[in-house]
């Protein structure tokens, strides 16, 4: 993974997690508070509703008491008690009950004997009040009863004659859910009989209510919604009947939660956006300097050079220190490498010197050729790197002569063909020697090709014209010049003018026709202050170029 990505993620993700976590926690907290508040208000509603209901129950009971004092009903009941099997008597009471029903709007009325045996009753079926089949139906004296499809709430009052109880009057009204402001469920022993929750079948409500204990508050899940359910235990409904109120918490807290979600959504989105921007900026500020360092290093990797950072110092201290220490390390490495190179060159130079020293006549030859070649190169305005290559390459140009015995090399007289062929091998030998040395690749062409002639008559390959590199051609001229101007056991060295003349003579055949005139003018210019300095003063000629030598040394 990229550093930038990693930096971004490492700062962004914890931020996001923290943000989402705290939003979630706040949302939960608010939700919890809303639910608690709702539960409390529900309970209060519940309590007040129960109170109202209890009050109306009391009113009803008073009203019922008055109904129980109905003299004609008492007379009818006494008649019926005296003749319980008499159809006329039962009809008489039924008739009385019908009249009461019709007047007072009850749904059923029933009289029973003091020992609880139902004697006569009427009930409303549609628009009609029909006699109740008392043998089959046994409605309780209190609470709920279900006859057919309908649920009735039943209340009773004793019918007393003096101090004697002569029976009970029970009245039933259809149980009306509309009296409850909250949805309610009527259940008996876990079986839901009636529900005022719209659109949900009774079975489903029953399953949802299963975990609730009979007379305890509980929370139920119904169609993905949470309902709070409270038993209305303040109202007595009799045998196993429980009335529970059910209120959807979700529906009540929904609007608030919606607002919260919107607020949190907008705030969260804003915060995330801000976080993303801040994170990107901060990670960029870390990554950018590092990336610059990395790019710099990559460049160094490609070139092998270790240039120092030129960019303005980074604002981050660590990055600045990194750049500085890189610069320090780079310069140390550069220095070490230069030292190593210099040591090589010096080693090779001393090797060349040692070679030159085998013969007093050739002593200093390599160094002189090096200096002359360097001067030519500079006069040609070559690049410093090329000048370096020429200087060191020229110093090493005769290294191959190590492999040629003194007998041949220092032979005073004319060489035989075989001996000459042996001599001609020295560029190839030199190349082979230096090939194995790492970092000397640039000098190989000079060592190998400094005896190639312009017209292709040179050795070892007989290259023509510019096929041999410029550096080799320069060294060829300088080598020839120094050889001509140096003394030999069998002859004295030529004078400068003579040598230049020879060079001019062979320019275009042996030598590069461009280099020779340049060299000639260069020598003429250096010769001017001491025109008669002598033809044989080879070493002295070196001295006319001290500044050149010094410069060359410094350049290494």
């Amino acid at each position, binding site marked *: 993974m990229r550093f930038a990505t990693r930096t971004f993620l490492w700062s962004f993700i914890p931020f996001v997690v923290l943000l989402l976590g705290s939003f979630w926690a706040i949302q939960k907290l608010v939700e919890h508070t809303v639910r608690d508040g709702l539960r409390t208000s529900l309970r209060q509603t519940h309590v007040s509703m129960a109170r109202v209901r209890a009050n109306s129950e009391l009113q009803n009971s008073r009203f019922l008491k008055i109904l129980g004092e109905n*003299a*004609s009903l008492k*007379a*009818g009941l006494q*008649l019926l008690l005296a003749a319980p099997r*008499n159809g*006329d*008597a039962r*009809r*008489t009471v039924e*008739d*009385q009950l*019908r*009249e009461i029903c*019709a*007047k007072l709007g009850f749904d059923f009325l029933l009289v029973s004997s003091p020992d609880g045996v139902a004697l006569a009753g009427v009930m409303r*079926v549609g*628009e*009609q*009040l*029909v006699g109740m089949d008392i043998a089959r139906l046994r409605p309780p004296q209190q609470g709920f009863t279900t006859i057919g499809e309908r649920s009735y709430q039943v209340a009773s009052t004793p019918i007393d004659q003096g101090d004697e109880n002569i029976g009970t009057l029970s009245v039933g009204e259809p149980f009306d859910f509309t009296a409850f402001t909250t949805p309610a469920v009527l259940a008996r022993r876990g079986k839901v009989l009636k529900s005022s929750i719209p659109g949900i079948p009774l079975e489903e409500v029953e399953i949802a209510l299963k975990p609730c204990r009979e007379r305890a508050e509980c929370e139920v899940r119904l169609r993905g919604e949470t309902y709070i359910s409270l038993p209305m235990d303040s109202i007595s409904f009799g045998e196993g009947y429980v009335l529970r109120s059910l209120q959807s918490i979700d529906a009540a807290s929904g609007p608030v939660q919606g607002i919260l979600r919107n607020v949190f959504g907008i705030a969260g989105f804003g915060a995330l956006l801000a976080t993303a921007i801040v994170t990107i900026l901060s990670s960029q500020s870390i990554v950018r300097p590092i990336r610059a360092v990395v790019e710099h290093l990559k460049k160094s990797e490609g070139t092998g050079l270790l240039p120092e950072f030129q960019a303005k110092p980074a604002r981050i201290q660590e990055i600045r220190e990194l750049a500085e220490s890189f610069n320090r390390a780079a310069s140390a490495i550069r220095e070490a490498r230069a030292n190593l190179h210099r040591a090589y060159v010096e080693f090779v130079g001393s090797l060349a010197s040692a070679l030159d020293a085998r013969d007093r006549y050739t002593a200093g030859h390599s160094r002189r050729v090096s200096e002359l070649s360097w001067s030519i190169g500079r006069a040609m305005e070559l690049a410093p790197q090329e000048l370096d290559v020429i200087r060191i390459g020229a110093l090493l140009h005769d290294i191959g002569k190590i492999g040629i015995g003194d007998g041949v090399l220092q032979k005073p007289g004319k060489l035989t063909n075989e001996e000459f062929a042996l001599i001609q091998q020295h560029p190839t030998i030199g190349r082979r020697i230096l090939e194995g040395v790492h970092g000397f690749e640039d000098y190989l062409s000079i060592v190998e090709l400094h005896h190639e002639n312009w017209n292709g008559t040179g050795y070892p390959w007989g290259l023509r014209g510019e096929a041999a590199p410029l550096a080799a051609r320069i060294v060829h001229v300088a080598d020839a010049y120094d050889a001509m101007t140096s003394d030999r056991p069998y002859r004295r060295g030529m004078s400068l003018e003579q040598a230049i003349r020879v060079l001019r003579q062979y320019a275009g055949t042996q030598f590069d026709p461009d280099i020779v005139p340049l060299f000639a003018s260069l020598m003429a210019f250096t010769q001017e202050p001491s025109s008669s300095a002598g033809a044989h003063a080879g070493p002295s000629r070196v001295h006319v170029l001290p500044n050149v030598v010094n410069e060359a040394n410094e350049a290494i």
Partner: protein
Amino acid sequence: MQMIVKLAIAAVFLGVTAVGGLSAADIQGSVVIKRKLTKRRVTASVSAYERGVTVKLDTGPDTDSLAFERTRVAVYLEGQFQSQPATAALEQKNRQFVTDTLVVPAGSTVSFPNRDPIFHNVLSLSKPKTFDLGNYPKDHTRTVNFPKPGIVFVNCHLHPNMTAAIVVAPNQWCTKADGAGRFALTDVPPGAYTLVAWHRAAGFFRQTVKVAKDHASPVEFIIPLDETGDAKVVAQR
């Protein structure tokens, strides 16, 4: 009103002095009621209840309510003259006494047959005759003799809305007005009499009637009621 009371007192006095003659005449008269006096209670028939039909109460019958009121007016002569006891029936039908105003001369026997498929109970707590016939079912009947004149209110213990009035007249000259308000007392010996009209809600109205041989002047009772429907003059019973 004061004048009417005075007249009434004078009539009582005159009534006592009246003497029956050999020849007789008919007293013709009419009752004028211009306003409905009582709310006629309507109960559905027992059989209707049996079928379970709910009947809206307090709706008047299709009949002319003023005519109905006129039929509830009892008319008789005051004074202990000769009486010819009779037998009459006061049925209990559809949780009503039929008829609700019965006029009989003193000493008559009234039977109370139950025509409903339910029990009824006939009782009276009125001074001239107190009785309780108990509960009895359909097609059973009980009889009661009314020797003393006066007004006997009859009720059913089981059905508090059932009520009837039996006007026990002191003599044989007693009758009820018809729907048009007309009434007639036949063969009244000549003399001065007090003629009494009684309506359950309006009370007693008295007029002096002179019966000549073969002739009696026509009588008109105007039974007045104020805005509230109460009779203006309610004489003592």
